């Protein structure tokens, strides 16, 4: 793209592709608004940026100046942020086009993108199924081929799980690798912005641009942006651990076949593969579903109709106003999590639930450290226990929905980098394989992913 006409044509093409994918309900920005904004952006976009002309969609819980930020919630309907997230500013400075806001579970709380106030997002290849969540809109629009990459956010697997369901690449960086300034907070000890891309390289390029120190976020480590590794010829010298707890007897047989094929491929590439144990894995989901709701109940206290959001009038006093606004404005899943979080933090229950969960979390993190201390460079696991499930299948039982995150939330609890990449299909539905790395060693994880992506038949039936 050497001159201005090319970038304008590219912007038009992106708008057209997103418009054609409208039936997925993956992008919340209207086609007309999106086209107008993309054309406007194409006139001012930085021509020497490393992402010049790349269309990147942004999850609706990341603040942008171009489009409203609603977090998929009625309580933030029409909210226009007065500032933009650091990650968005860095994408623009690198020449990317911000290609609209993507649908998500309300305030990123969900595993299916069925909990959005703006309707559910459809799976890109089977409309009866879910795309995963909470970054389901980002995953679906990348899988549909409308954009090269999209930003998502992770609190408990919300980038990797939808990436696995939709057959794209999803990366969650180390806690502290990417600035969260401008990400609407859900669980502050867990939240990270991640990237979904059509290939490892697409996602890694975007991650490299958005990573690095940011004085506006005190949890962001004082480190340089991630340097991308070269694509390795083979994986000789790599030691890859396969945790036995991630291959339980009830694992979907198709997922098991695809992952075992990927493990064979890792061996063929020269990696040394060995079984390891992470004995506290079974406690990751209950730990997560104490810590995350507790932090959410605190973070979401600000949405009360006074500081943010539309106000539901007619209340007799200010507390009645808060209750009416929050009762009306939040959806079912968000209210349920706020209730659970408030309960576990309430007097008499704090030690039994929240404190205990933080102690178990330390054991889960120690499991990972023990594996890495024994010479393992990376871990390989299935990303999810099944392929994309049917819409509505898990709505009646919240615990069944939470268990969809069983293989992804441990990395969030330990703050480690992890990613999902396609390793095969079962009855046409994608299967994701997960790599978990050591803190701030995303480059090693990406090296292995580059090699695996080239060698494994990611779109072939397992």
């Amino acid at each position, binding site marked *: 793209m050497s001159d201005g006409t090319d970038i304008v044509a590219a912007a038009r093409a992106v708008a057209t592709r997103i418009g054609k994918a409208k039936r997925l309900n993956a992008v919340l920005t209207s086609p007309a608004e999106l086209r107008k904004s993309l054309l406007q952006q194409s006139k001012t976009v930085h021509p020497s940026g490393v992402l010049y002309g790349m269309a990147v969609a942004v999850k609706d819980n990341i603040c942008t100046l171009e489009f409203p930020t609603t977090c998929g919630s009625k309580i933030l309907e029409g909210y226009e942020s007065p500032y933009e997230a650091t990650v968005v500013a860095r994408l623009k400075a690198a020449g990317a086009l911000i290609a609209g806001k993507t649908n998500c579970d309300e305030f990123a709380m969900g595993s299916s993108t069925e909990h959005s106030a703006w309707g559910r997002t459809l799976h890109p290849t089977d409309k009866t199924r879910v795309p995963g969540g909470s970054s389901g809109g980002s995953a679906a629009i990348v899988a549909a081929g409308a954009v090269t990459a999209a930003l998502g956010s992770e609190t408990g697997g919300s980038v990797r799980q939808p990436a696995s369901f939709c057959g794209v690449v999803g990366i969650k960086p180390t806690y502290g690798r990417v600035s969260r300034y401008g990400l609407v907070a859900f669980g502050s*000890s867990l939240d990270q912005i991640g990237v979904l891309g059509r290939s490892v390289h697409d996602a890694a390029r975007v991650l490299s641009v958005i990573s690095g120190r940011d004085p506006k976020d005190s949890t962001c480590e004082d480190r340089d942006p991630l340097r991308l590794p070269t694509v390795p010829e083979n994986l000789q010298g790599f030691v890859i651990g396969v945790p036995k707890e991630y291959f339980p007897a009830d694992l979907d047989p198709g997922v098991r076949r695809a992952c075992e094929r990927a493990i064979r491929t890792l061996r063929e590439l020269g990696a040394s593969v060995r079984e390891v144990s992470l004995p506290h894995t079974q406690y990751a989901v209950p*730990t997560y579903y104490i810590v995350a709701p507790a932090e959410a109940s605190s973070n979401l206290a600000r949405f009360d109709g006074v500081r943010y959001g539309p106000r539901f009038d007619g209340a007799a006093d200010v507390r009645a106003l808060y209750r009416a606004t929050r009762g009306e404005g939040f959806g079912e899943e968000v209210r349920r999590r*706020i209730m659970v979080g408030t309960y576990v933090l309430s007097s008499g229950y704090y030690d039994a*639930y929240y404190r205990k969960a933080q102690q*178990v979390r330390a054991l889960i993190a120690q499991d990972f450290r023990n594996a890495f201390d024994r010479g393992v460079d990376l871990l390989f696991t299935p990303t999810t226990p099944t392929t994309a499930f049917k819409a509505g299948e898990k709505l009646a039982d919240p615990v069944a929905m939470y268990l969809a995150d069983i293989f992804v939330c441990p990395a969030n609890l330990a703050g480690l980098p992890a990613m999902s990449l396609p390793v095969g299909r079962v009855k046409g539905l994608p299967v994701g394989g997960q790599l978990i790395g050591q803190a701030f060693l995303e480059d090693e994880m990406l090296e292995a992913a580059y090699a695996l992506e080239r060698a494994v038949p990611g779109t072939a039936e397992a």
Partner: protein
Amino acid sequence: MSVTPDDVARIAQLAELHLDQEEMPALVGQMSRILDYVAQLGQVQVGEGAKPFVLGPDAIRCRPDEVKPWPLAFGPSEFAPVFKSGFFVVPRLGQFGDEGSDE
């Protein structure tokens, strides 16, 4: 550890959430299911003195504590009822009953 409708009503009050009575039975059931599920952590032996997990930089950096003027969107003279020579004009203490305002 199942919860009762009274527990749920109390928690809703703490969380500043209005709940309709008709949604109460479902919420009681779902909260009980979730709390029963997460209660399995009670079986985990963590040992005496086990520390809660803390992530992030060892020393959270703070911005410099500098006192800076905070620019107002419009000047004080524009929102004060009476403003004279750089001061807000208010009634003298103890004389609210008097007619007019003193300077």
